[in-house]
Protein backbone atom coordinates (compact mmCIF):
# COMPACT_ATOMS: atom_id res chain seq x y z
CA UNK A 1 0.00 0.00 0.00
CA UNK A 2 2.64 2.52 1.05
CA UNK A 3 4.73 1.53 -1.96
CA UNK A 4 1.77 2.11 -4.25
CA UNK A 5 1.23 5.60 -2.80
CA UNK A 6 4.95 6.20 -3.06
CA UNK A 7 5.05 5.29 -6.75
CA UNK A 8 1.93 7.31 -7.42
CA UNK A 9 3.56 10.37 -5.85
CA UNK A 10 6.89 9.77 -7.55
CA UNK A 11 5.21 10.04 -10.94
CA UNK A 12 3.52 13.29 -9.99
CA UNK A 13 6.18 15.75 -8.76
CA UNK A 14 3.80 18.70 -9.13
CA UNK A 15 1.38 17.08 -6.70
CA UNK A 16 4.19 16.45 -4.21
CA UNK A 17 5.26 20.07 -4.49
CA UNK A 18 1.70 21.15 -3.83
CA UNK A 19 1.45 18.89 -0.78
CA UNK A 20 4.76 20.18 0.59
CA UNK A 21 4.39 23.85 -0.19
CA UNK A 22 0.64 24.11 0.31
CA UNK A 23 0.36 24.19 4.12
CA UNK A 24 3.19 26.65 4.91
CA UNK A 25 2.36 28.91 1.99
CA UNK A 26 -1.33 28.93 2.80
CA UNK A 27 -0.57 29.73 6.44
CA UNK A 28 1.71 32.63 5.61
CA UNK A 29 -0.57 33.99 2.89
CA UNK A 30 -3.76 33.81 4.91
CA UNK A 31 -2.52 34.65 8.40
CA UNK A 32 0.45 36.92 7.75
CA UNK A 33 -0.20 38.63 4.42
CA UNK A 34 -3.92 38.62 5.17
CA UNK A 35 -3.25 40.52 8.39
CA UNK A 36 -0.90 42.95 6.68
CA UNK A 37 -3.62 43.57 4.13
CA UNK A 38 -6.16 44.17 6.89
CA UNK A 39 -3.69 46.63 8.40
CA UNK A 40 -3.37 48.48 5.11
CA UNK A 41 -7.13 48.62 4.62
CA UNK A 42 -7.67 49.89 8.16
CA UNK A 43 -5.21 52.71 7.67
CA UNK A 44 -7.67 54.15 5.12
CA UNK A 45 -10.57 54.14 7.61
CA UNK A 46 -11.01 56.77 10.28
CA UNK A 47 -12.21 57.12 13.84
CA UNK A 48 -15.26 59.32 14.30
CA UNK A 49 -14.27 61.57 17.21
CA UNK A 50 -17.76 62.05 18.67
CA UNK A 51 -19.07 58.50 18.56
CA UNK A 52 -15.70 56.79 19.02
CA UNK A 53 -16.66 54.37 16.24
CA UNK A 54 -14.49 53.37 13.30
CA UNK A 55 -16.00 54.51 10.01
CA UNK A 56 -15.28 51.95 7.32
CA UNK A 57 -15.07 54.24 4.33
CA UNK A 58 -12.09 55.03 2.18
CA UNK A 59 -10.47 58.24 3.34
CA UNK A 60 -7.02 59.80 3.56
CA UNK A 61 -8.02 61.69 6.68
CA UNK A 62 -6.06 59.37 8.97
CA UNK A 63 -2.91 59.73 6.91
CA UNK A 64 -3.29 63.50 7.14
CA UNK A 65 -3.14 63.13 10.94
CA UNK A 66 0.25 61.48 10.69
CA UNK A 67 1.73 64.62 9.24
CA UNK A 68 0.65 66.88 12.07
CA UNK A 69 3.58 68.44 13.93
CA UNK A 70 3.39 66.13 16.95
CA UNK A 71 3.54 62.97 14.87
CA UNK A 72 6.18 64.38 12.55
CA UNK A 73 8.29 65.00 15.60
CA UNK A 74 7.79 61.39 16.70
CA UNK A 75 8.99 60.14 13.32
CA UNK A 76 11.98 62.45 13.39
CA UNK A 77 12.95 61.50 16.94
CA UNK A 78 12.66 57.76 16.28
CA UNK A 79 14.59 57.85 13.01
CA UNK A 80 17.34 59.91 14.65
CA UNK A 81 17.59 57.40 17.51
CA UNK A 82 17.68 54.47 15.04
CA UNK A 83 20.47 56.16 13.08
CA UNK A 84 22.50 56.97 16.20
CA UNK A 85 22.13 53.41 17.50
CA UNK A 86 23.15 51.98 14.11
CA UNK A 87 26.32 54.06 13.85
CA UNK A 88 27.27 53.30 17.45
CA UNK A 89 26.73 49.58 16.98
CA UNK A 90 28.83 49.55 13.82
CA UNK A 91 31.72 51.12 15.77
CA UNK A 92 31.27 48.85 18.79
CA UNK A 93 30.93 45.69 16.70
CA UNK A 94 34.04 46.15 14.62
CA UNK A 95 36.86 45.22 17.04
CA UNK A 96 35.24 42.00 18.24
CA UNK A 97 34.09 41.01 14.73
CA UNK A 98 37.57 41.73 13.42
CA UNK A 99 39.23 39.71 16.13
CA UNK A 100 36.90 36.72 15.59
CA UNK A 101 37.31 36.80 11.82
CA UNK A 102 41.05 37.29 11.56
CA UNK A 103 42.85 36.28 14.73
CA UNK A 104 40.88 33.70 16.73
CA UNK A 105 41.91 30.06 16.34
CA UNK A 106 39.14 27.81 14.96
CA UNK A 107 38.36 26.46 18.41
CA UNK A 108 38.24 29.87 20.05
CA UNK A 109 36.21 31.16 17.11
CA UNK A 110 33.47 28.57 17.70
CA UNK A 111 33.21 29.64 21.33
CA UNK A 112 33.31 33.34 20.59
CA UNK A 113 30.54 32.96 18.02
CA UNK A 114 28.45 31.13 20.59
CA UNK A 115 29.21 33.90 23.08
CA UNK A 116 27.88 36.45 20.58
CA UNK A 117 24.81 34.48 19.48
CA UNK A 118 23.58 33.62 22.97
CA UNK A 119 22.73 37.25 23.81
CA UNK A 120 21.21 37.57 20.33
CA UNK A 121 18.72 34.78 20.95
CA UNK A 122 18.23 35.16 24.68
CA UNK A 123 15.34 37.08 26.07
CA UNK A 124 15.29 40.61 24.78
CA UNK A 125 12.84 41.64 27.48
CA UNK A 126 14.98 40.32 30.31
CA UNK A 127 18.02 42.09 28.89
CA UNK A 128 16.05 45.34 28.89
CA UNK A 129 15.09 44.59 32.48
CA UNK A 130 18.74 44.07 33.39
CA UNK A 131 19.47 47.61 32.25
CA UNK A 132 16.63 48.93 34.35
CA UNK A 133 18.57 47.54 37.32
CA UNK A 134 21.91 48.85 36.07
CA UNK A 135 20.75 52.37 35.20
CA UNK A 136 18.61 52.95 38.28
CA UNK A 137 19.57 56.02 40.30
CA UNK A 138 20.71 53.85 43.20
CA UNK A 139 21.98 51.12 40.85
CA UNK A 140 25.31 49.67 39.83
CA UNK A 141 26.30 52.25 37.20
CA UNK A 142 25.75 55.17 39.55
CA UNK A 143 27.80 53.36 42.18
CA UNK A 144 30.59 52.85 39.67
CA UNK A 145 30.48 56.47 38.47
CA UNK A 146 30.58 57.58 42.09
CA UNK A 147 33.61 55.38 42.69
CA UNK A 148 35.45 57.07 39.83
CA UNK A 149 34.24 60.54 40.94
CA UNK A 150 32.66 61.15 37.56
CA UNK A 151 29.33 62.47 38.89
CA UNK A 152 29.80 65.99 37.50
CA UNK A 153 30.07 64.57 33.98
CA UNK A 154 26.93 62.45 34.42
CA UNK A 155 25.00 65.39 35.89
CA UNK A 156 26.12 67.56 33.02
CA UNK A 157 25.00 64.96 30.45
CA UNK A 158 21.63 64.54 32.16
CA UNK A 159 21.11 68.31 32.20
CA UNK A 160 21.23 68.53 28.38
CA UNK A 161 17.56 68.91 27.45
CA UNK A 162 17.48 66.70 24.30
CA UNK A 163 19.15 63.65 25.83
CA UNK A 164 18.90 64.14 29.59
CA UNK A 165 16.34 63.45 32.27
CA UNK A 166 15.97 62.95 35.99
CA UNK A 167 18.17 59.83 35.93
CA UNK A 168 19.77 57.52 33.39
CA UNK A 169 16.88 55.07 33.69
CA UNK A 170 14.42 57.79 32.61
CA UNK A 171 16.19 59.56 29.79
CA UNK A 172 16.82 59.35 26.04
CA UNK A 173 20.49 58.84 26.87
CA UNK A 174 19.60 55.69 28.86
CA UNK A 175 17.38 54.47 26.02
CA UNK A 176 20.21 54.99 23.58
CA UNK A 177 22.58 52.88 25.72
CA UNK A 178 20.02 50.10 26.02
CA UNK A 179 19.17 50.07 22.31
CA UNK A 180 22.86 49.97 21.40
CA UNK A 181 23.37 47.07 23.81
CA UNK A 182 20.30 45.08 22.79
CA UNK A 183 20.95 45.08 19.03
CA UNK A 184 24.77 44.86 19.11
CA UNK A 185 24.93 41.07 18.34
CA UNK A 186 22.85 41.68 15.19
CA UNK A 187 25.69 43.90 13.95
CA UNK A 188 28.63 41.73 15.05
CA UNK A 189 27.54 38.60 13.14
CA UNK A 190 27.23 40.08 9.61
CA UNK A 191 30.37 42.21 10.02
CA UNK A 192 32.27 39.13 11.16
CA UNK A 193 30.91 37.15 8.17
CA UNK A 194 31.99 39.88 5.75
CA UNK A 195 35.48 40.12 7.29
CA UNK A 196 35.81 36.35 7.18
CA UNK A 197 35.39 36.41 3.42
CA UNK A 198 38.32 38.80 2.86
CA UNK A 199 41.01 36.50 1.40
CA UNK A 200 44.40 36.60 3.10
CA UNK A 201 46.09 36.77 -0.29
CA UNK A 202 44.52 40.18 -0.82
CA UNK A 203 46.04 41.47 2.41
CA UNK A 204 49.41 39.97 1.54
CA UNK A 205 49.23 41.55 -1.90
CA UNK A 206 48.47 44.89 -0.31
CA UNK A 207 51.47 44.50 2.00
CA UNK A 208 53.72 43.38 -0.83
CA UNK A 209 52.75 46.45 -2.81
CA UNK A 210 54.09 48.57 0.03
CA UNK A 211 50.94 49.44 1.97
CA UNK A 212 51.41 50.01 5.67
CA UNK A 213 49.07 47.99 7.94
CA UNK A 214 46.76 50.96 8.53
CA UNK A 215 46.65 51.63 4.78
CA UNK A 216 45.66 48.02 4.13
CA UNK A 217 43.01 48.36 6.80
CA UNK A 218 41.71 51.63 5.41
CA UNK A 219 41.80 50.77 1.69
CA UNK A 220 41.24 47.00 1.58
CA UNK A 221 39.56 45.70 4.72
CA UNK A 222 37.13 48.52 5.44
CA UNK A 223 35.58 48.69 1.94
CA UNK A 224 35.16 44.91 1.89
CA UNK A 225 33.57 44.91 5.36
CA UNK A 226 31.15 47.67 4.46
CA UNK A 227 28.40 45.42 2.98
CA UNK A 228 28.46 43.52 6.30
CA UNK A 229 27.95 46.76 8.21
CA UNK A 230 25.01 47.64 5.95
CA UNK A 231 23.54 44.16 6.46
CA UNK A 232 23.81 44.55 10.24
CA UNK A 233 22.37 48.04 10.07
CA UNK A 234 19.15 46.63 8.55
CA UNK A 235 18.50 44.90 11.88
CA UNK A 236 19.70 47.65 14.22
CA UNK A 237 17.74 50.27 12.31
CA UNK A 238 14.54 48.28 11.80
CA UNK A 239 14.41 46.93 15.34
CA UNK A 240 14.96 50.36 16.92
CA UNK A 241 12.37 51.92 14.63
CA UNK A 242 9.52 49.65 15.75
CA UNK A 243 10.38 49.05 19.38
CA UNK A 244 8.05 50.17 22.15
CA UNK A 245 9.35 48.16 25.09
CA UNK A 246 12.48 50.24 25.65
CA UNK A 247 10.74 53.65 25.33
CA UNK A 248 7.95 52.50 27.65
CA UNK A 249 10.38 51.18 30.26
CA UNK A 250 13.09 53.83 30.11
CA UNK A 251 11.74 56.79 28.21
CA UNK A 252 10.00 59.92 29.33
CA UNK A 253 6.84 61.52 27.97
CA UNK A 254 8.37 62.04 24.54
CA UNK A 255 6.89 59.35 22.28
CA UNK A 256 8.60 57.04 19.81
CA UNK A 257 6.82 55.44 16.82
CA UNK A 258 6.24 52.04 18.42
CA UNK A 259 5.03 53.63 21.62
CA UNK A 260 2.62 55.87 19.69
CA UNK A 261 1.19 52.89 17.78
CA UNK A 262 0.85 50.99 21.05
CA UNK A 263 -1.06 53.74 22.80
CA UNK A 264 -3.24 54.67 19.79
CA UNK A 265 -4.55 51.12 19.45
CA UNK A 266 -4.71 50.44 23.18
CA UNK A 267 -5.98 53.29 25.31
CA UNK A 268 -7.02 55.32 22.26
CA UNK A 269 -8.85 52.46 20.55
CA UNK A 270 -7.92 54.20 17.30
CA UNK A 271 -6.86 51.28 15.10
CA UNK A 272 -6.88 53.29 11.84
CA UNK A 273 -4.39 55.81 13.24
CA UNK A 274 -2.21 53.04 14.69
CA UNK A 275 -2.33 51.28 11.30
CA UNK A 276 -1.41 54.41 9.35
CA UNK A 277 1.37 55.18 11.81
CA UNK A 278 2.79 51.64 11.34
CA UNK A 279 3.06 52.29 7.61
CA UNK A 280 5.79 54.80 8.51
CA UNK A 281 8.37 52.20 9.60
CA UNK A 282 7.25 49.90 6.77
CA UNK A 283 7.93 52.56 4.13
CA UNK A 284 11.20 53.63 5.77
CA UNK A 285 12.32 49.98 5.90
CA UNK A 286 11.40 49.27 2.27
CA UNK A 287 13.47 52.28 1.15
CA UNK A 288 16.27 51.17 3.46
CA UNK A 289 16.23 47.63 2.07
CA UNK A 290 16.34 48.91 -1.52
CA UNK A 291 19.37 51.08 -0.75
CA UNK A 292 20.98 48.22 1.19
CA UNK A 293 20.56 45.91 -1.79
CA UNK A 294 22.32 48.49 -3.98
CA UNK A 295 25.21 48.52 -1.50
CA UNK A 296 25.51 44.72 -1.69
CA UNK A 297 24.24 44.02 1.81
CA UNK A 298 22.21 40.95 0.83
CA UNK A 299 25.31 39.07 -0.28
CA UNK A 300 26.72 39.60 3.19
CA UNK A 301 23.71 38.22 5.04
Amino acid at each position, binding site marked *: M*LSRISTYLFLRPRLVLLLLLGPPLLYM*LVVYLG*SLFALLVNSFFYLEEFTGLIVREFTLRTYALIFNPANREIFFRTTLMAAAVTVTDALLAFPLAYYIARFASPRLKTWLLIAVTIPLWSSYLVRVYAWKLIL*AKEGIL*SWFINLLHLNPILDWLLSIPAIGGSSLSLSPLGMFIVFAYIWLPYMIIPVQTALERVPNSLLEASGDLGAKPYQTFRNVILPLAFPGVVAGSIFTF*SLTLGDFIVPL*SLGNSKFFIGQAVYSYQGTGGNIPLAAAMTMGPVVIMVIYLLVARKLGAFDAL
Partner: protein
Amino acid sequence: MRSKSYSGAQASWGLKIAAFLTLLFLHVPIWIIFLYSFTPDETTYTFPLPGFTTRWFGVALGRSDLWSALTLSLRVAAVATLAALVLGTLAAAAVYRSNFFGKESVSFLLVLPIALPGIVTGIALRTAIGGLEIPFSFWTIVIGHATFCVVVVYNNVLARFRRTSGSLVEASMDLGANAFQTFRYVIFPNIATALLAGGMLAFALSFDEVIVTTFTSGQQTTLPIWIFSQLTRPRDRPVTNVAALIVILITFVPIFLAQRLTAESSETGESKSG
Protein backbone atom coordinates in the same frame (compact mmCIF):
# COMPACT_ATOMS: atom_id res chain seq x y z
CA MET B 1 41.59 21.14 10.03
CA ARG B 2 43.85 22.00 7.20
CA SER B 3 42.23 25.10 5.74
CA LYS B 4 42.88 27.87 8.24
CA SER B 5 40.99 31.00 7.39
CA TYR B 6 42.74 32.91 10.13
CA SER B 7 46.14 34.35 9.47
CA GLY B 8 47.80 32.87 12.53
CA ALA B 9 49.20 36.32 13.28
CA GLN B 10 48.93 37.87 16.72
CA ALA B 11 46.36 40.55 17.37
CA SER B 12 47.57 43.79 18.89
CA TRP B 13 46.88 44.33 22.58
CA GLY B 14 44.56 47.20 21.79
CA LEU B 15 42.38 44.98 19.62
CA LYS B 16 42.39 42.15 22.17
CA ILE B 17 41.31 44.49 24.95
CA ALA B 18 38.60 46.10 22.80
CA ALA B 19 37.24 42.69 21.78
CA PHE B 20 37.29 41.50 25.38
CA LEU B 21 35.49 44.61 26.63
CA THR B 22 32.79 44.18 23.96
CA LEU B 23 32.32 40.60 25.09
CA LEU B 24 31.97 41.76 28.70
CA PHE B 25 29.49 44.44 27.63
CA LEU B 26 27.37 41.71 26.00
CA HIS B 27 27.36 39.40 29.00
CA VAL B 28 27.72 41.33 32.26
CA PRO B 29 24.13 42.72 32.19
CA ILE B 30 22.81 39.15 32.12
CA TRP B 31 24.85 38.29 35.24
CA ILE B 32 23.35 41.29 37.02
CA ILE B 33 19.98 39.52 36.93
CA PHE B 34 21.50 36.58 38.81
CA LEU B 35 22.91 38.95 41.41
CA TYR B 36 19.68 40.84 41.99
CA SER B 37 17.53 37.76 42.51
CA PHE B 38 19.34 37.44 45.87
CA THR B 39 18.84 40.98 47.10
CA PRO B 40 16.85 41.51 50.31
CA ASP B 41 15.92 44.99 49.09
CA GLU B 42 12.21 45.21 48.26
CA THR B 43 11.73 48.76 47.08
CA THR B 44 14.88 49.91 45.27
CA TYR B 45 17.67 48.54 43.10
CA THR B 46 20.43 49.54 45.52
CA PHE B 47 23.96 48.49 44.70
CA PRO B 48 26.01 47.10 46.43
CA LEU B 49 23.28 44.73 47.58
CA PRO B 50 22.39 45.40 51.22
CA GLY B 51 22.52 41.67 52.01
CA PHE B 52 21.91 38.22 50.67
CA THR B 53 18.72 36.18 50.76
CA THR B 54 17.12 33.28 48.92
CA ARG B 55 13.65 33.95 50.28
CA TRP B 56 12.31 35.47 47.01
CA PHE B 57 12.59 32.12 45.28
CA GLY B 58 10.17 30.73 47.84
CA VAL B 59 7.89 33.76 47.49
CA ALA B 60 7.94 33.42 43.69
CA LEU B 61 7.12 29.70 43.97
CA GLY B 62 4.03 30.56 45.98
CA ARG B 63 2.73 33.12 43.50
CA SER B 64 -0.14 31.64 41.50
CA ASP B 65 -0.17 34.49 38.94
CA LEU B 66 3.48 33.76 38.14
CA TRP B 67 2.81 30.04 37.81
CA SER B 68 -0.13 30.48 35.47
CA ALA B 69 1.89 32.93 33.34
CA LEU B 70 4.75 30.44 33.20
CA THR B 71 2.50 27.51 32.19
CA LEU B 72 0.75 29.60 29.55
CA SER B 73 4.12 30.59 28.06
CA LEU B 74 5.34 27.00 28.06
CA ARG B 75 2.15 25.73 26.41
CA VAL B 76 2.20 28.46 23.76
CA ALA B 77 5.88 27.84 23.01
CA ALA B 78 5.34 24.08 22.72
CA VAL B 79 2.44 24.34 20.28
CA ALA B 80 4.03 27.17 18.26
CA THR B 81 7.25 25.16 17.98
CA LEU B 82 5.34 22.09 16.80
CA ALA B 83 3.55 24.15 14.14
CA ALA B 84 6.83 25.76 13.09
CA LEU B 85 8.54 22.35 12.83
CA VAL B 86 5.87 20.99 10.49
CA LEU B 87 5.42 24.12 8.35
CA GLY B 88 9.12 25.01 8.25
CA THR B 89 10.23 21.50 7.26
CA LEU B 90 7.58 21.25 4.54
CA ALA B 91 8.61 24.60 3.09
CA ALA B 92 12.31 23.72 3.25
CA ALA B 93 11.69 20.39 1.48
CA ALA B 94 9.65 22.08 -1.25
CA VAL B 95 12.25 24.79 -1.85
CA TYR B 96 15.14 22.31 -1.81
CA ARG B 97 13.79 19.63 -4.15
CA SER B 98 11.84 21.60 -6.73
CA ASN B 99 12.20 24.55 -8.99
CA PHE B 100 9.06 26.55 -9.37
CA PHE B 101 7.92 30.00 -10.26
CA GLY B 102 8.24 32.37 -7.32
CA LYS B 103 10.67 30.19 -5.36
CA GLU B 104 12.64 33.24 -4.21
CA SER B 105 9.52 34.89 -2.86
CA VAL B 106 8.84 31.93 -0.55
CA SER B 107 12.03 32.64 1.42
CA PHE B 108 11.20 36.33 1.35
CA LEU B 109 7.67 35.74 2.63
CA LEU B 110 8.91 33.51 5.44
CA VAL B 111 11.60 35.94 6.59
CA LEU B 112 9.32 38.97 6.47
CA PRO B 113 7.90 38.53 10.01
CA ILE B 114 11.37 38.87 11.52
CA ALA B 115 12.72 41.43 9.01
CA LEU B 116 9.93 43.91 9.65
CA PRO B 117 9.71 45.46 13.13
CA GLY B 118 7.74 43.19 15.48
CA ILE B 119 5.17 45.89 16.00
CA VAL B 120 4.10 45.59 12.33
CA THR B 121 3.29 41.89 12.74
CA GLY B 122 1.64 42.62 16.07
CA ILE B 123 -0.63 45.45 15.01
CA ALA B 124 -1.46 43.65 11.73
CA LEU B 125 -2.64 40.54 13.59
CA ARG B 126 -4.47 42.72 16.09
CA THR B 127 -6.30 44.45 13.23
CA ALA B 128 -7.23 41.15 11.57
CA ILE B 129 -8.41 39.64 14.87
CA GLY B 130 -10.47 42.75 15.58
CA GLY B 131 -11.87 42.93 12.06
CA LEU B 132 -12.99 39.30 12.04
CA GLU B 133 -14.27 39.65 15.61
CA ILE B 134 -12.29 36.61 16.75
CA PRO B 135 -12.11 36.46 20.55
CA PHE B 136 -8.59 36.51 22.01
CA SER B 137 -7.52 33.06 23.13
CA PHE B 138 -4.63 30.67 23.57
CA TRP B 139 -4.78 30.10 19.79
CA THR B 140 -4.51 33.75 18.81
CA ILE B 141 -1.18 33.86 20.68
CA VAL B 142 0.01 30.61 19.07
CA ILE B 143 -0.93 31.76 15.56
CA GLY B 144 1.03 34.97 16.04
CA HIS B 145 4.11 33.16 17.37
CA ALA B 146 4.06 30.53 14.60
CA THR B 147 4.41 33.24 11.90
CA PHE B 148 7.90 34.22 13.07
CA CYS B 149 8.99 30.77 14.31
CA VAL B 150 8.56 29.06 10.93
CA VAL B 151 11.54 30.85 9.39
CA VAL B 152 13.90 29.62 12.13
CA VAL B 153 13.12 25.96 11.44
CA TYR B 154 13.04 26.61 7.70
CA ASN B 155 16.53 28.16 7.66
CA ASN B 156 18.04 25.37 9.76
CA VAL B 157 16.47 22.52 7.80
CA LEU B 158 17.12 24.07 4.38
CA ALA B 159 20.79 24.60 5.27
CA ARG B 160 21.02 20.92 6.23
CA PHE B 161 19.28 19.76 3.05
CA ARG B 162 21.79 21.74 1.01
CA ARG B 163 24.69 19.97 2.75
CA THR B 164 23.10 16.54 2.40
CA SER B 165 24.04 14.79 -0.81
CA GLY B 166 21.06 14.15 -3.09
CA SER B 167 22.63 10.87 -4.21
CA LEU B 168 21.78 9.36 -0.80
CA VAL B 169 18.08 9.64 -1.57
CA GLU B 170 18.59 8.26 -5.07
CA ALA B 171 20.58 5.32 -3.69
CA SER B 172 17.82 4.57 -1.22
CA MET B 173 15.20 4.60 -3.95
CA ASP B 174 17.41 2.47 -6.23
CA LEU B 175 17.74 -0.08 -3.48
CA GLY B 176 13.99 -0.45 -3.45
CA ALA B 177 12.91 1.75 -0.56
CA ASN B 178 9.69 3.63 -1.06
CA ALA B 179 9.32 7.34 -0.30
CA PHE B 180 8.20 6.75 3.28
CA GLN B 181 11.03 4.33 4.04
CA THR B 182 13.48 6.77 2.46
CA PHE B 183 12.15 9.51 4.68
CA ARG B 184 12.23 7.32 7.78
CA TYR B 185 15.72 5.82 7.30
CA VAL B 186 17.62 8.33 5.16
CA ILE B 187 16.17 11.84 5.23
CA PHE B 188 14.99 12.00 8.83
CA PRO B 189 18.25 10.84 10.47
CA ASN B 190 20.06 13.37 8.31
CA ILE B 191 17.95 16.36 9.29
CA ALA B 192 17.22 15.28 12.88
CA THR B 193 19.77 17.58 14.54
CA ALA B 194 18.72 20.47 12.29
CA LEU B 195 15.12 19.91 13.38
CA LEU B 196 16.24 19.80 16.99
CA ALA B 197 18.29 22.99 16.66
CA GLY B 198 15.55 24.83 14.75
CA GLY B 199 12.90 23.62 17.15
CA MET B 200 14.83 24.73 20.22
CA LEU B 201 15.49 28.18 18.79
CA ALA B 202 11.82 28.51 17.84
CA PHE B 203 10.89 27.48 21.39
CA ALA B 204 13.20 30.09 22.93
CA LEU B 205 11.96 32.73 20.52
CA SER B 206 8.33 32.02 21.34
CA PHE B 207 8.85 31.60 25.08
CA ASP B 208 10.19 35.11 25.62
CA GLU B 209 8.36 36.99 22.85
CA VAL B 210 6.60 40.09 24.08
CA ILE B 211 5.94 42.56 21.25
CA VAL B 212 3.62 40.48 19.05
CA THR B 213 2.08 38.86 22.13
CA THR B 214 0.99 42.24 23.49
CA PHE B 215 -1.33 42.56 20.53
CA THR B 216 -2.62 38.98 20.29
CA SER B 217 -3.13 37.97 23.94
CA GLY B 218 -6.02 40.17 25.02
CA GLN B 219 -6.33 39.83 28.79
CA GLN B 220 -4.15 36.71 29.04
CA THR B 221 -0.76 37.00 30.72
CA THR B 222 2.27 35.16 29.44
CA LEU B 223 5.46 35.30 31.49
CA PRO B 224 7.04 38.04 29.31
CA ILE B 225 3.80 40.06 29.50
CA TRP B 226 3.91 39.68 33.29
CA ILE B 227 7.49 40.95 33.40
CA PHE B 228 6.68 43.77 30.99
CA SER B 229 3.84 44.99 33.22
CA GLN B 230 6.35 45.07 36.10
CA LEU B 231 8.79 47.07 33.97
CA THR B 232 6.37 49.92 33.43
CA ARG B 233 4.70 49.77 36.87
CA PRO B 234 7.01 48.00 39.33
CA ARG B 235 5.05 46.47 42.19
CA ASP B 236 6.89 43.25 42.99
CA ARG B 237 10.54 44.02 42.30
CA PRO B 238 12.06 40.99 44.05
CA VAL B 239 9.62 38.56 42.42
CA THR B 240 10.30 40.15 39.02
CA ASN B 241 14.02 39.53 39.51
CA VAL B 242 13.30 35.86 40.07
CA ALA B 243 10.92 35.72 37.09
CA ALA B 244 13.61 37.26 34.86
CA LEU B 245 16.06 34.66 36.09
CA ILE B 246 13.57 31.88 35.26
CA VAL B 247 13.25 33.20 31.69
CA ILE B 248 17.04 33.29 31.27
CA LEU B 249 17.46 29.76 32.59
CA ILE B 250 14.62 28.29 30.51
CA THR B 251 15.83 29.91 27.27
CA PHE B 252 19.57 29.46 27.84
CA VAL B 253 19.65 25.67 27.61
CA PRO B 254 17.87 25.31 24.24
CA ILE B 255 19.79 28.25 22.74
CA PHE B 256 23.14 26.90 23.88
CA LEU B 257 22.39 23.36 22.66
CA ALA B 258 21.12 24.66 19.32
CA GLN B 259 24.31 26.68 18.84
CA ARG B 260 26.47 23.69 19.69
CA LEU B 261 24.50 21.45 17.33
CA THR B 262 24.77 23.82 14.38
CA ALA B 263 28.43 24.64 15.11
CA GLU B 264 29.36 20.94 15.22
CA SER B 265 27.43 19.98 12.12
CA SER B 266 28.96 22.82 10.11
CA GLU B 267 32.43 21.74 11.27
CA THR B 268 31.84 18.13 10.16
CA GLY B 269 30.16 19.46 7.02
CA GLU B 270 33.31 21.36 6.15
CA SER B 271 35.60 18.43 6.76
CA LYS B 272 33.37 16.27 4.56
CA SER B 273 33.61 18.64 1.63
CA GLY B 274 37.30 19.43 2.21
